[in-house]
């Protein structure tokens, strides 16, 4: 069998990614038709930059979602005779599987295309989740620090600056080490860090529905149940049903990434809070006799959402790059894992001869981060138009 021509290759890639195109067209059609009713999200479709960014991000989100439909081979399987095969090479012995390596083979004869697609799933599973937890921690601590101030503020700011004074890379070397994994340190840190989101939602709902005990009990109860269930699984690997869980390795990486990101978010939230708390509507709420948590979570936070959403997008991108850095130093993430950082690191050694193995994940990583940055830019522009 001959290798595929470039045109043929592109056609096959297009067909392989069909589910993604369908989903993208559907989302864009829907969004553009109803953009007037969709608030900030709808206004995103007024800006070209924002739309391009959104399209790039959603491309990878859908790729990750439909990854099992898209891949042509098992991302971990090795095929004899396919070491460093060029893009479009026919598989020597397909045994009923897909007959070509669309983007070639890597140094261990695995399909680069399938690894890139599954890598999207790996990356999008960790980065946004880590950014989200960082945000909840930053918000839960930043709001009171800015709003209440005093000793609490001084203490929290000192701790945040302490973490920020640490070079990120040194922290990773120290925290994401196999020796540390076997100690209680990651578990303890996870125990503290993962508790924050549960507390956040509990307080959030409690403050909102304080006056309606029935509703409150229901919501808070539900949050506590789901939250603590996930918490036991994620932080202590003690989920009785076994739904939630993280390998010690992943937990270690996750905790380190959250730990590094949370202080920056804290500083941003604190700064915005200091600004917003002098506004009239906050004073109005205070005169109404609302509790401090209600004011922080339901008056200040919604008004701070613009810059926070923008930073959230940027932070996902930054976290993606950070995870790649870990891969570069061979820290953290599991071996054989198709995540982009590790695949770039493995492929780069042979870049001058077999560039495809490193370039595919590198382009993927860059386009995702670029998309997130453009999306953030679009959102910023549109939110400033208020």
């Amino acid at each position, binding site marked *: 069998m001959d290798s595929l021509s470039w045109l043929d290759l592109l056609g096959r890639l297009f067909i392989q990614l069909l589910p993604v195109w369908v989903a993208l067209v559907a989302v864009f059609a829907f969004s553009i038709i109803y953009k007037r009713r969709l608030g900030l999200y709808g206004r995103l479709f007024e800006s070209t930059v924002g739309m391009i960014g959104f399209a790039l991000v959603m491309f990878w989100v859908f790729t990750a979602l439909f990854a099992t439909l898209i891949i042509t081979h098992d991302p*971990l*399987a*090795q095929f*004899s*005779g396919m*070491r*460093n095969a060029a893009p479009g090479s026919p598989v020597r012995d397909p045994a009923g599987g897909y007959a070509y390596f669309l983007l070639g083979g890597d*140094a*261990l*004869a*695995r399909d680069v295309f399938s690894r890139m697609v599954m890598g999207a799933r790996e990356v999008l599973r960790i980065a946004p989740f880590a950014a989200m937890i960082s945000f909840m921690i930053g918000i839960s601590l930043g709001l009171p620090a800015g709003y209440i101030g005093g000793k609490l503020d001084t203490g929290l700011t000192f701790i945040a600056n302490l973490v920020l004074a640490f070079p990120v890379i040194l922290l990773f070397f120290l925290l994401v*080490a*196999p*020796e540390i994994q076997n100690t209680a340190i990651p578990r303890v840190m996870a125990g503290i860090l993962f508790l924050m989101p549960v507390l956040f939602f509990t307080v959030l709902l409690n403050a909102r529905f304080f006056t309606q005990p029935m509703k409150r009990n229901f919501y808070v109860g539900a949050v506590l149940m789901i939250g603590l269930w996930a918490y036991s699984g994620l932080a202590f690997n003690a989920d009785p049903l076994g739904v939630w869980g993280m390998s010690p*390795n992943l937990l270690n990486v996750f905790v380190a990434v959250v730990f590094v990101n949370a202080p920056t978010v804290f500083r941003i939230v604190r700064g915005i809070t200091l600004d917003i708390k002098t506004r009239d509507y906050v004073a109005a709420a205070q005169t109404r006799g609302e509790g401090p948590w209600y004011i922080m979570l339901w008056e200040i936070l919604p008004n701070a959402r613009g810059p926070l959403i923008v930073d959230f997008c940027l932070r996902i991108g930054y976290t993606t790059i950070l995870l790649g850095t870990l891969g570069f130093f*061979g820290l953290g993430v*599991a*071996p*054989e894992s198709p995540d982009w950082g590790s695949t770039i690191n493995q492929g*780069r*050694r*042979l*870049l*001058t*001869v077999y560039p495809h193995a490193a370039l595919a994940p590198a382009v993927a990583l860059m386009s995702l981060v670029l998309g997130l940055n453009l999306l953030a830019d679009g959102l910023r522009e549109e939110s400033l138009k208020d």
Partner: protein
Amino acid sequence: MTRKTSKSTPLHRAARLFARECKDGTLSRREFLTRATALGVAAPAAYGLLGLVAPQARAQTPQMGGTLRMQMDIKAQRDPRTWDWSELANVCRGWLEYLVSYERDGTVQPVLLESWEANDDATIYTLKLRSGVTWNNGDVFTASHVAHNIERWCDASVEGNSMAGRMSALSDGGKLREGAVEIVDDLTLRLHLSSPDISIIVNMADYPAAVVHPSFTGDDPVANPIGTGPYRPVSHDTGIGAVIERNPDHTWWNEGNGAYLDRIEFLDLGTDPAAWMAAAEGGEIDMTYQTTGDFVDLFEMIGLPKSEAITASTLAVRFNQTQAPYDNVNVRRALQMAVNNAIVLELGYNDLGTVAENHHVCPIHPEYADIGTTSFDPEAAKAMIAAEGLADHEFELISIDDNWQAATCDSVAAQIRAAGINIKRTILPGATFWNDWLNYPFSSTEWNMRPLGVQVLNLAYRSGEAWNEAGFSNAEFDALLDEANGIADADARREVMAKIQQILLDEGVLIQPYWRSLYRNKRDTILNAEMHPTFEVRYQHYALS
């Protein structure tokens, strides 16, 4: 090349026996040379027994002078007897010399010794020192210096002194045995072994056996470079590089047969071969220390041809039998059956070696018995794993983060996975990996070559041995191994060996995918710098043409 004279001594009886076996084809030439020279037969004589002429140095004439720049890890120096990396020894080879040396062709050549002789049952060795050797501080090299070194080697109380194990026939209770070394005169000494040991002279060629001056305190041989060789260190920066230059204040005993280069610069460029490649392309290095995988060809492409050494070095992907589920022989055998060694060699090591047979005895070993190997049968493997109730069990294969070792284990894991068995990989950084290397349930370890097949088996698979990482304990195996150790004749030993190898296969001790060839890449202009099977860098003989 090395050209040393040796007085004609009566040939050892066993050496003639070996020569006959070699001519009959039952003993490999390499093995014959190793064993005959170990018994004190000079290399030309050993070649002569086979009716051959000893190979001469290559025709290209070495030129005096020049600088060689070589990529090599520069690790923090320490007491030579505790060296655990060949690189540590290679830096010091220019001034710290050895009593004997192990050559690429398998012979053992005298260096600071002139000759040696063993009695018939290899329990008494008479060592004759080379005369006219001086230390670079002016002292004359004498038998008492050698005795001092042997005493140092025997001291097991020093952490990490690996010579202690090699000299066990001379020691007692972790110290040199009283009366084990007898100084006959200034240039002669006699070793009295507690048991026959034909490997004791070969062991003196091992890299930790560098001969140091009596004034050496046991710390850093670079800081206080008293030695017998023609070079001296100029600088030594751990992790960065080292510079060696010819010592103008010292007359080397082997003047004229080496010390061609003025200066040797070692560059430590980290562990990433891509960085070495970039350095070679930029013209910053002329030679690599060891190249693996794809890089062997890549360096060749940019003008650094490869030099190959065929060895019995390997990667042992072993199970630790003291830990569940690997205490179950069916599990071990099933995992072996799931792996096609030929594919691991292709994908994990770029086909740069030969397929091995899961029993850690190499066809280049004289006593190797061809008994076949485990059959490759992934379906049966899956069924066996399921029968043991482990269908949902996730196995874990641990390896060090070194490039080729990790790739090989990835290949092994991919094969096991392809058979429908769950497995995950774990990679540990070099500094961490060794913390627990003996106790990982399922992991890989690099084993360098030993001239004899029984040597590794003695080290790694005998019950209770310090390096028995497989946790293998089998009384029958131990008894057979003892028997094999006492048989000098390779044919007779092969019969016992067949049984030993069969036990290793039946017990599913390890997955051993391949025997690897070693490579280095160097520019055409560098002479005498072929890859050495035990990674030696004898820059005192290297030259530019």
